[in-house]
């Protein structure tokens, strides 16, 4: 299906006709009886997987099954931060690959994902933070990832609204900055991938929940859905918070636990912050959207939940820290808060892996930080599905690491702040 190319000229042409002529960005097809590959989950990672299956591996007989609507889960609920300043080589390479894909993604997808490399600052509030950030900086630079340590005064220059007084409970002692990091428009990432995948002939089927996975002689043969059974040679599951639920359909027990993670926005104000500032120690991260809202992220609730809502005490805890660090926000109102269900892994690293069932692949465990990895995750997962073996970039993120003990402990770089 030939699509309209988005450009300044198509915009002008449509403006002349009062924007009545825009075609639909993707079809809403009925499921076919069978596909070469079925992707479970139409979030950013699932749609990216479908797109790279077509683009990099020439596999276009693919369906993406989404139980709700596109990008309605964690893709549309995160705080849109993109960075690659991770500690271990395995993670650094994976997230850096993703960041590099982000850098060319608007052109690649012909869709403005509003990627803004405004920099991400990590704050240090104590001696340990400074040492951890410095150590991570050395590791990053060895992996060719840009990373600088900066003083509290330098942070104040970049973000004048920050309070660097020594008299607050957790004073800012310094921090690190990754200048190539930043934000992207999360919905646009999902929509851009969906539009291009659809252009390759991939069926994106919304409101279609997978209720079972068919397995014969240790090999996957298809899925059961709320819209009937669909056969498939290969199934790639990217179910985020519902990883354990989907895993159980295939008899798999996974090392993930589902928790609510909350985020919120303030009422819109004039531009006051043109970077992203994160603090692991006091659990607050802040950026400002183009609409002027301050986008704020909180921590996870300690208990398991699938309810897509969290507790107020988590928000209170986070806003206390926010008011201490950025006193000008004290009289702002919070406009919206929401929660998503994140699938946390014991080592704060994802699982992008083959499974004991032939033709079934799992991509889960991204926990609190999956958005930044959307392009890279889809890229390596498409390779894993197409070639039936992991790419060099994701072979360490195998399910077997929980037997072998080769964990990739990223609690320092991941924490909750994403």
């Amino acid at each position, binding site marked *: 299906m030939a699509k309209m190319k988005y450009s300044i000229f198509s915009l002008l042409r449509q403006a002349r006709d009062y924007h009545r002529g825009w075609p639909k960005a993707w079809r809403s097809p009925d499921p076919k009886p069978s596909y070469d590959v079925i992707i479970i989950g139409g979030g950013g990672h699932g749609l990216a997987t479908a797109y790279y299956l077509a683009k990099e591996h020439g596999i276009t007989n693919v369906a993406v099954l989404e139980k709700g609507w596109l990008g309605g889960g964690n893709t549309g609920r995160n705080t849109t931060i993109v960075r690659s300043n991770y500690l271990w080589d395995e993670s650094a390479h994976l997230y850096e690959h993703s960041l590099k894909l982000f850098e060319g993604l608007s052109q690649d997808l012909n869709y403005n994902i509003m990627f803004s490399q405004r920099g991400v600052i990590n704050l240090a509030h104590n001696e340990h933070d400074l040492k951890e950030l410095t150590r991570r900086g050395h590791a990053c630079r060895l992996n060719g990832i840009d990373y600088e340590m900066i003083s509290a005064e330098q942070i104040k220059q970049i973000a004048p609204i920050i309070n660097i007084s020594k008299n607050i409970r957790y004073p800012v002692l310094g921090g690190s900055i990754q200048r190539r990091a930043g934000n992207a428009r999360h919905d646009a990432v999902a929509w851009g991938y969906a539009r291009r995948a659809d252009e390759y002939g991939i069926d994106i089927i919304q409101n279609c929940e997978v209720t079972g996975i068919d397995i014969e002689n240790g090999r996957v043969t298809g899925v059961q859905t709320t819209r009937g059974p669909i056969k498939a040679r290969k199934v790639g599951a990217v179910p985020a918070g519902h990883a354990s639920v989907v895993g159980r359909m295939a008899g798999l027990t996974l*090392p993930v*636990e589902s928790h609510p993670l909350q985020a919120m926005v303030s009422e819109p104000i004039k531009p006051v912050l043109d970077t992203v500032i994160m603090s692991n120690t006091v659990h607050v991260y802040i950026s400002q959207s183009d609409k002027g809202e301050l986008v704020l992220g909180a921590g996870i609730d300690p208990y*398991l*939940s699938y309810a897509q809502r969290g507790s107020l005490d988590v928000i209170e805890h986070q806003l206390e820290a926010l008011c201490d660090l950025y006193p000008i926000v004290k009289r702002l109102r919070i406009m919206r808060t929401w929660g998503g269900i994140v699938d946390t892994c014991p080592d704060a690293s994802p699982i992008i892996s083959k499974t004991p069932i032939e033709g079934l692949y799992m991509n889960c465990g991204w926990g609190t930080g999956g958005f930044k990895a959307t392009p890279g995750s889809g890229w390596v997962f498409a390779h894993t599905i197409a070639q039936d073996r992991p790419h060099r970039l994701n072979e360490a993120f195998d399910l077997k690491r929980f*037997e072998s*003990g080769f964990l990739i402990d990223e609690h320092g770089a991941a924490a909750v702040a994403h």
Partner: protein
Amino acid sequence: MLLIECPHCGPREQTEFTCGGEGHIVRPDPDTATDAEWGHYLFMRKNPKGLHFERWFHAHGCRQWFHAARSTVTHEIFAIYGIDEPPPAIDPSKAGSQ
């Protein structure tokens, strides 16, 4: 936030407690367990959508451990029972189990 009925102190806010995660996990004998069994014990979790038997610790109260049977869909708590007691019989459909 959850309101949790501590078996010793009565109903208290969840912020007084630490969640100890899935309950009733049996530690295999480290001398005979295979790597797979040990990995399963350390890391694999049921993570159910619905009825969940979990451990709680009243960290800012009596500092006692106990079990709760709770729905991970509605957050409703169906039973509170001792740390050394087996899980009670509860109809999983009541907890929205899938």
